[in-house]
């Protein structure tokens, strides 16, 4: 976070060997298959969604780190890549803090004395 960003070394983006890209691509495909297989065969109740999201997050990290070159970026890029995710969790957190903890309010049961005696 110093003022030297302007005079960075002449190199542009980081060059990654082809086999890394290939490995990432294959891993992504394999993870996709795993997602489907797990979802179709294994049943761990409400954990299914957690497992699916975990695998998705691993895949997303692979895409971000290697395909999007995040691994080789400066801290500022990391900051602005991470910030929206923090905010997203905040938003979800606020809403999940509210909705499930709302008090169940029921209207009072009415016994209409005019109708009751008919």
């Amino acid at each position: 976070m110093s003022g030297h960003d302007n005079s960075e070394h002449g190199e542009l983006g980081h060059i990654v060997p082809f086999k890394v890209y290939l490995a990432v691509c294959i891993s992504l495909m394999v993870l996709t298959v795993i997602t489907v297989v797990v979802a179709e065969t294994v049943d761990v109740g409400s954990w299914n969604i957690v497992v699916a999201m975990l695998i998705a997050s691993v895949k997303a990290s692979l895409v971000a780190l290697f395909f999007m070159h995040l691994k080789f970026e400066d801290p500022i890029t990391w900051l602005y890549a991470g910030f929206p995710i923090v905010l997203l969790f905040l938003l979800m957190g606020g809403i999940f803090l509210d909705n499930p903890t709302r008090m169940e309010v029921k209207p009072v049961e009415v016994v209409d004395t005019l109708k009751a005696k008919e």
Partner: protein
Amino acid sequence: MSSSNEATVSGPPHAHHWDPVTAYHGSKLGMWLFLATEILLFGVLFTAFAIFRYLYMEEFHHASQYLDWKMGAINTAVLIFSSFTAVLGVDAAQHGDNKKTFRWLCVTVACGFIFLIVKYLEYSHKAHIGLFPFIECNDHAQFCWDSVEFKNEFKMYFGLYYCMTMLHALHVIIGMGILTWALLKAKKNRYSTDYYTPVEMGALYWHLVDLIWIYLFPLLYLVD
């Protein structure tokens, strides 16, 4: 909007007021910021999906049965592969190989087309059985979008499904536009080891499209 944004972000080589290296890094930071806004744009939909899935677990489970996970899986594979080809396009540009860049980006755009075709097939099947807004209810269809029974049976699952996938499809189309623009530049031999910002920006955008689908696929198709 976004495509013209791209046009401006990348700028011509050697923009008059900053040196090429700073311009490249600045453009990339700008792009990442833009991707951050995209994540939050979809984030609202993900949040809405999460809370209503929590509230209407059974309806959502029931509704997801009407999606064909095979279609979704094909599209996932197509997008992952297209991300791979996009990054190879960037790699070629980094080595100053305009021809290869052009070829890889063409493959990427083609994958985009395949994705959209599969999506179209899915939508048209839904439209056929009445699981689609904007169409009149008819006797042949199994469901009727505007009916009370439909809403009660599926709650807002399909509404969210269409909001999310249509927005995503829109991003696919925009991404294809940016990549087409980038590959036309490759055709004209505009890139060198010193300048390949448009390819890199286009690919970044395309990866985000892929990244969002990576979450959409299990959420929508495999949820139970």
